[in-house]
Structures are given as C-alpha cells and as structure tokens.
C-alpha cells in the first residue's frame, strides 16, 4: 500500500502561536498534533470531525498553506517526490500546479468583476502554464465542458449564476492546472441537497476520469459515506480512527466515531431517540485535557484514559484506532 500512497504524513503537527501574553508561558494552539496518514493514489479520502478538530488545518498543511511545525509530509505522484516540510521555492512552485483547493463558499470565492472565462484562466496565467491565449482558451474550454459549463457561460459574470453553477466554476478553476491532488474543504456544505447531489456526482466523475486523488473534508457523514472510499476521523487535532468507508460505518471502533455516527439524524421518523447522545463540547486546543483527548466526554473513560494518550494502533489492517479500550469494547465486555 505505501508505495502507492500519494500523500504520506508522519507525526505531522501544526501549531499556531497565540498573540499577546508577554508574561507567562507562551501559548500555542495545537491545531494538528502527531497525525500520520496515508492517502492512496486515486482515492477519495474523507476527513471528518467536529468543528475545530483540525480538518481544515490538516488539509492546508498538505497543500503547504499552513506551517508544518513538526513531522513529515511526503508527496509522491510517481513523477516527482517532495518532502513538503523541506521543499525549496522552485519545487514549491511546481507543487502548486499539482495540488489544489476547492473552497466551501461558492459565493465568496469568485471575483465579481471577472468573467467566468477569466476566473478559470487565472491560475494558468499566474502559474505561467500556457504560452498563448489560444492555448489558455483551449484549456479553459476543455475543463469548463467537463464541469458542464458552456461557451455562453464563460462570457458571463459569476453573480448571474446559481450556487451549484458557481461551485462548478470553482471546481473548473481548481482543476484547470491539471492537479493530481485536490483538497475539497466543505465543498458542498453551502449547497441545497438537489444541487449537492449534482456536484458530488461531478467530483466523482472527474476523479475517475482524470485519475485524481481527493481529500474530501466534510462535517456531513452521510455525504462522506456515499462518496469516499476511506475515512479518517479527527478529534482535537488528533487522528482517532481511520478505515475503509464501509468498515468504518459498519463497525466503528472509537467511542467518538460511534457517537458521531449515532448523532446523524435518521430519515426514519420511527427511529427517534436512538442516538446515544454525546454530552458537552469539544475542549479548546489551547488547553487540551491530559491523556486521551476525548476522555472528558467519553462514557468509557477510565484512569488510564485520563493519564496516558492512546497511540494509533496499526493492526496491519487498514483500520486504525487510537483508544485504550477499543478491543474490550468490541468484545462487548466493557461497562460505561
């Protein structure tokens, strides 16, 4: 598996210093802490977790858009291999053409004064990927067609478009440089379900046809279940579980993953009150609890959980979990 990984992180941490506080110890926000993941080439890799768990920060670190405080990030697409923590300027310039971001908000992301053609063409021009206007136009038309935007659309300004069309424009813009790796951060969160389905189908088609690798960040677990082939769960900057999608949804191991899944509102009106409710809220990353970060909310926490941080098990399978008690809980012997 590892020789086919596009992205490999080892013990990746992203810390942000907190401003102010000249007196006393300098505080940092541990937005991402000791994360090791492998994103297989050609996969649709999901990243879930509550708000503030570090999903966006991890995604940005993989794009070299957040500082890598510690650890390693290796990008290897078969053509080039980069160590992102130590990458030089020329290599970073090349990496920017290979790794792209699709934003959440299709309304904020597009400049109102540019035509759709210019919006999509901009990355090509900024990166100097095309030599002539004709070549640029050719590339823009090709990707626009794939995103179901026609020539008439290209002449217009973005305000004249609906949310779904705007998101297709953002997607075309992200893909025009022919990246290998795309981070989609809440790319469908702002869309209505009817449009969401359309954009998700488009992303899947493009991924398959162009052989892309996606990191798909979402707080909507039903969406993740439908489009991703592998899912990683984060909590307070840590990776707590990582597994193939079906396995994760059928047999979650971490108490946090279980709580997340059971909180999804069921479409069945007769299935009310089934959720095992998770009490409380995610703690602040400036002041994380000792031991297992989830112990303040975990119904199964014991002494060891409060003292020692569980390591991510690497069972030799693709299903990893960071919990002292997962095996015991799986056997059904444990009591809350």
């Amino acid at each position, binding site marked *: 598996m590892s020789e086919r990984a596009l992205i490999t992180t080892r013990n990746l941490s992203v810390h942000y210093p907190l401003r102010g506080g000249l007196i006393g110890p300098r505080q940092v926000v541990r937005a991402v802490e000791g994360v090791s993941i492998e994103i297989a080439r050609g996969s649709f890799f999901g990243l879930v977790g*509550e708000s503030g768990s570090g999903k966006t920060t991890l995604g940005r670190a993989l794009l070299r858009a957040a500082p890598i405080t510690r650890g390693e990030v290796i990008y290897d697409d078969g053509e080039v291999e980069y160590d992102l923590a130590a990458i030089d300027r020329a290599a970073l310039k090349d990496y920017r053409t290979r790794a792209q971001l699709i934003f959440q908000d299709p309304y904020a992301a597009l400049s109102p004064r540019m035509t759709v053609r210019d919006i999509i063409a901009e990355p090509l021009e900024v990166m100097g990927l095309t030599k002539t206007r004709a070549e640029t136009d050719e590339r823009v038309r090709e990707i626009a067609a794939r995103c179901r935007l026609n020539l008439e659309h290209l002449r217009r300004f973005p305000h004249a478009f609906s949310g779904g069309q705007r998101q297709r424009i953002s997607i075309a813009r992200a893909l025009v440089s022919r990246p290998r790796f795309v981070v989609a951060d809440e790319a469908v969160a702002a869309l209505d*379900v009817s449009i969401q*389905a359309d954009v998700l189908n488009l992303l899947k088609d493009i991924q398959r046809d162009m052989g892309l690798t996606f990191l798909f960040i979402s707080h909507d677990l*039903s969406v993740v279940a439908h489009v991703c082939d592998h899912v990683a769960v984060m909590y307070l900057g840590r990776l707590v579980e990582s597994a193939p999608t079906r396995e994760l949804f059928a047999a979650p191991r971490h108490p946090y993953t279980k709580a997340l899944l059971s909180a999804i*509102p*069921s479409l*069945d009106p007769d299935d009310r009150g089934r959720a095992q409710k998770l009490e409380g809220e995610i703690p602040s990353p400036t002041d994380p609890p000792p031991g297992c970060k989830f112990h303040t909310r975990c119904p199964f926490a014991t002494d060891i959980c409060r003292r020692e941080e569980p390591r991510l098990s690497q069972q030799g399978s693709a299903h990893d979990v960071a919990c002292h008690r997962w095996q015991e809980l799986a056997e059904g012997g444990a009591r809350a």
Partner: protein
Amino acid sequence: MTRLLDVENLTLQFDTDEGRITAVDGVSFSLEQGEVLGLVGESGSGKSVTAKSLMKLNPGNAIYGPQTRIALHLDDGSVDIMSLRTSSELQLVRGGAISMIFQEPMASFAPAITIGKQMVEQLLIHTDMSKKQARELSIEMLARVGISDASRRFDQYAFELSGGMRQRAMIAMALSTRPRLLIADEPTTALDVTIQAQVIELMKDLVAEFGMAIIFITHDLGVIAQTADTVAVMYLGRLVERGPVREVLRSPGHPYTRGLLEALPDLEDLDRPLTPVPGDIPSPLERPSGCVFHTRCQVAIEGLCRREVPQFVDLDEHHRAACHLVARERGAA
C-alpha cells in the same frame, strides 16, 4: 386538537432594483396547538419570508397580497395579523405569542448587551414581572436549556459563548415568554451533528413541557424526520405538498418532494446513486407559468403543466399535493 393558526392565501412580493418579485404565492395552511411543522424546500423557495410574515416581520419593500389572511388564535381571542400596523401592536405578537430563533444566534443578540440584560428586557415588555422575577426566570431558563453555571453566563456577552451554547441561550430567551408558537429558522444548520442532536433533544423536551407549536424550517430531511409531526414542502413560493411526516417521507406525492428524497444520501443504502433534481431553481423574476416546477419536472404532462396551476388534491386524509399528475392518477383510481 385546537387550532392555533390559520394562514389563507399568503402572497408576498418584494420591490427590488430588478423589478417586483413574487416570494410567496397563495400559500394556505393551518397549525394546531402543540403541532411541530417541518417546512422544507430549496434555498430561495420562500420558507423564511413565509415564517416572518406570521409576525409581519418582513422589511419595508414587502407587499402583502390583498387576499392574505393570517389569524392567530389565542386564549383571549383571535388576532388578525395583517391588520396590525403600529409597532406597539406588533410587539404583542413578536417575542410574545410568537418567538423566532435563527441559524445564526448572533443575529438574536445585540453584541454590546449582556445575554441576561436582553432576556430581562424582553420579559419586562411581554409580561408583568418585576425586574427581580425576570432575572430569576431568565437564569432558570438558561439552566433549563443545559447551560451550566447559568448565573455567571447571565452576565456574559453572546460572543463569549461557544456556538452550541449560544444556540441554547437563544432558545432560552425565545421560550422565556412562553410563546404559543416558536419559529425555528435553520436552528441547527450551522452546528455539528453532535451539538445538533443535543439541540434537537432539548427542543423536543421543551415542546413536551411547554406545549407550544413549532414551525421548524430546515433543508435537512433527517432533522425533519426526527422532530416534525407534519411536513410542508415549498418550491418557488408555492406550497406543493403537505402531510404527516411518515406519509410525506415514505410515500411522497409531489414529483419535487420525490426528487428531494432521491438526491439525499441515505446511510441505509450506500450503493444507491444520488440523483439530482435536474436543472436549477428559476429566478423569482422569471417564475414559470402553470406549475412552477414544470421546467424541472421529468413527468410533466405535455400541454397541461406549463399552462395551468395545479390545485391541491388529497392523497390521504391529511396528505395533499398540488400536482396535475397526482390529480390524474387519483381521478383514475
């Protein structure tokens, strides 16, 4: 059951720079006391403005249709909402008999006033409590919605609370005047599923305890399934289907409702493809003639749907849909 609200022929237009747009077009429905109605539909379908109309809360460029009647039935008689003019008349309804909570709780709280002060002020307007009683009740309500350390939170500002806590504080404020109707406009959309589950649980408990009716606006059909007794589906300013939650979700009548359900990812069936409703919702400036959904409907009847507005037909005792095809099938059966 006792009737709480009757809405007849609600029509609402807005004067805008681009012309006059129709945001709500002939919507009629009623609500019983204690009923939880889920209002669903794509963004721009008119859910929020319909809800705000019940308090005449729409801005100055709003024009209500002359046929519009909204009657709120309270213990001491019915209020004709459309006839309320002055702000003191409207005050009796707004935040009194009807309270509203929003997706963004910051919208409900003035940033420079403490949460407690706002709660007390609202109680002083709508009840004959003393300041001391209002303070006590406010702290009790904050504790009731699960805010620990309520007397300290009482003196804090909204920005000092986490998102989930703000939502709870807003619910506490909205319910402290014991409204007969609570309008919740996407109250959990900005929340994590875990916090959403907590808020839903809380709202259910409060309905059981206070017995008020709720209009729950959301685009999340899962949330509807978990909370609502009845569902109303809107499309481009029209009500297209209405019925008990089980019937609407399990045997939807209107092609648009069916389309919404097919577009939705379902955890029970991961292999089912997600089928989008084809096309985009038309601009309110270019409302289609006849059935407003005909430009996207895959079963539209040639020559009919484009020309004639479909009337509601009964699918069941309380389950109705406005669709020519449904009418035809019913007629044939």
